[in-house]
């Protein structure tokens, strides 16, 4: 049984619908009385036009029904009171008939005009209301730093539309659906949403001409529709076949806004991830740097102590001294490995290169000097053309590159074997090579020699050539290994420098 309040509301609604008709009849009576009053005072012709005013007003204000009712009431009253024979409804002449038709026509035309005007105004108002609501929502949503909060605001607004029964926004991150905002969804619905996103296919819905269009595959189906967005899915349930077009437009606008917010969410996600990676790189380098320091300090004490005891004045037996020299060599190796590890991690973290124009011969000289003890057992042949243009490199890193390659060559070259260093200008770059007379590298390994921790020897650290590759690539060059007739050759390229003219020397 309906509550008394509903009955009352129903009655009020009915009354408000009938009221204009009452107003029309009452108005016609009032006009009749006014005409009667005026004619009793003075003889005036054509007062029937006052009825027209009434009908115009009724049509403009209340629409066709009341206007037609008003015009019929006016005609009847006019006919009864003023058209001879007065006191009857008889229409005697064509003139009266014409008058009636005119009244009716005016009623119909004005009400028609007024109704379309009213409709246009109502729709303009609705549009203004919608865009204001959307604008407010968009501003609030875009100002909210937390995208999830903004999406929740948007879902609430969508759910407020009378024809929308359910509304939910689902994020799909690497294939996994997560409900971000709106109504609860079942596991099956979430799965459906993920499918829709992955395949980029909407289910049961489309957006056409800025409005949501329902595409019913099963008319009886109450399942929600799915619309894939930038990095998520909108899940929408719509009541009834005949949803209000304004609401469908509003819904499309809301979905567009949701798409933007999803985009923002993804951008925030990605920048956070990049930031995390970057700071983890920095952290790694900082840890390695401090670890290297901690490792090198004891190695320093070890080496100083071991070499002190190996001094002739320490008075040890030759075999004891030999043992100390061996131990010192091990400590030196350990030190090199720690240094390589640090160098590699710094290069991987994107070391800032201090590039300047340098003569390649200088860089070769630095490296050969650094390794002069080791290279004394080889025949080093450096053949550099005199007109070799300078290279644009970080002197320290390029020195490390050369030293590592020379050391590698020294380790593989037979005792007394030749190590050849050469360079040439080739297609705008400097191409340099270091070749030794050692055994060839297996063809399958030619690419792998530059991999981190890959080594041909049981005692190698697998870092030296990996560092070479990083240094060369940091300078925009390339490095490769190949087997020549004599032995393995490592070839790399470095950029040439744009050389300024030397300043004329002042003395």
């Amino acid at each position, binding site marked *: 049984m309906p509550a008394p309040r509903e009955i009352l509301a129903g009655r009020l609604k009915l009354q408000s619908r009938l009221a204009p008709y009452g107003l029309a009849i009452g108005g016609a009576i009032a006009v009749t009385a006014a005409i009667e009053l005026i004619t009793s005072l003075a003889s005036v012709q054509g007062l029937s036009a006052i009825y027209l005013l009434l009908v115009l007003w009724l049509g403009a204000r209340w629409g066709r029904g009341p206007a037609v009712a008003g015009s019929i009431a006016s005609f009847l009253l006019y006919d009864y009171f003023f058209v001879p024979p007065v006191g009857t409804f008889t229409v005697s002449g064509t003139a009266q008939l014409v008058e009636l038709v005119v009244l009716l026509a005016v009623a119909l035309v004005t009400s028609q005009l007024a109704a379309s005007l009213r409709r246009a105004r109502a729709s303009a108002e609705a549009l203004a209301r919608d865009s204001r609501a959307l604008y407010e929502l968009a501003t609030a949503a875009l100002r909210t730093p937390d995208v999830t909060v903004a999406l929740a605001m948007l879902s609430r607004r969508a759910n407020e539309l009378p024809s929308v029964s359910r509304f939910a926004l689902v994020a799909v991150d690497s294939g996994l659906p997560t409900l971000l905002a709106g109504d609860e969804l079942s596991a099956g619905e979430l799965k459906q949403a993920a499918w829709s996103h992955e395949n980029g296919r909407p289910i049961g819905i489309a957006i056409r001409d800025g409005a949501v269009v329902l595409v019913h595959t099963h008319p009886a189906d109450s399942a929600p529709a799915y619309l894939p967005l930038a990095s998520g899915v909108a899940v929408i349930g719509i009541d009834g076949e005949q949803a209000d077009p304004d609401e469908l437009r509003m819904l499309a606008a809301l979905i567009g806004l949701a798409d933007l917010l999803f985009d923002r969410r993804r951008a925030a996600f990605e920048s956070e991830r990049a930031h995390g990676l970057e700071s983890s790189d920095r952290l790694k380098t900082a840890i390695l740097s401090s670890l290297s320091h901690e490792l090198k300090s004891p190695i320093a004490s070890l*080496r100083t102590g071991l070499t*002190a005891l190996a001094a002739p004045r320490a008075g040890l037996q030759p075999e004891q001294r030999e043992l100390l020299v061996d131990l010192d060599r091990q400590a030196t190796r350990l030190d090199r490995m720690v240094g390589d590890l640090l160098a590699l991690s710094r290069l991987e973290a994107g070391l800032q290169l201090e590039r300047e124009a340098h003569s390649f011969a200088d860089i070769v000289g630095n490296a050969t000097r650094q390794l002069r003890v080791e290279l004394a057992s080889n025949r080093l042949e450096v053949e550099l053309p005199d007109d070799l243009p300078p290279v644009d490199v970080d002197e320290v890193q390029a020195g490390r590159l050369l030293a590592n390659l020379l050391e590698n060559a020294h380790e593989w070259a037979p005792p007394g074997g030749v190590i050849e260093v050469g360079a040439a200008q080739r297609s705008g770059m400097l191409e340099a090579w270091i070749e030794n007379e050692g055994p060839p590298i297996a063809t399958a390994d030619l690419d792998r020699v530059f991999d981190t921790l890959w080594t041909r020897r049981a005692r190698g650290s697998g870092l030296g050539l990996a560092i070479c590759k990083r240094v060369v690539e940091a300078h925009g060059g390339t490095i490769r290994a190949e087997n020549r007739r004599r032995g393995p050759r490592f070839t790399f390229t470095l950029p040439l420098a744009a050389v300024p003219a*030397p300043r004329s020397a002042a003395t």
Partner: protein
Amino acid sequence: MSGRVLVVDDEVEMQRALRTGLSYYDFDVRAVGSGEEAVREAAAWRPDVILLDLGLPGMDGLATLKALRPAERAAVIVVSVMPDEKDKVRALDAGADDYLVKPFGTEELVARIRAVLRRQADVTAGEPVIRAGDLEIDIGRRTVTVGGRVVRLTPTEYELLRYLALHAGKPVTHTTLLRQVWGDYAIGDKYNTRYVVAQIRKKLGDDPANPRYIVNEPGVGYRLEG
């Protein structure tokens, strides 16, 4: 050659190893663990060489170097684990005579100490002819010869070589060379020193890929082999 060596290092093991090692080469060694003590000990004991670790707790190595420099005539060899090239340049520009990267062997250290002591002795004696292998630079007569052959240098080339020769064995930074040879306005223009050094090497018949006289100190500057 012997002398007094003050070791400034906060690691006790390092102090002990250096005391033992250097004593086998007839050096008189004292060791302290902080910059403050180093300044006090340097003033009281008057060492010939100070071996200064840059990574000291409290007053750091560079600050200690600056505190030592005005008062001391002792040569300072800066020692450091993993120094940046900029650290080396800063230490040299602040007046260090040489630097040595940890870890190092005792023999290498002894060679460096002897080199700075020799330079000190040369400076004191006012030696007019400086030799590096068969290269001779006669400061008084402004002549340069290689194996008896006279080498003609431009004034700029001679100035640069003379400055390196006066500090033979010591790494001289680009900044110092530019200031000494060209003047303050040229500082920062490292290409100048590189160009002039290349010219000098060519005239001396020195191979840059295997230099005998002027040696590169990567990221730092040049050194004339002592």
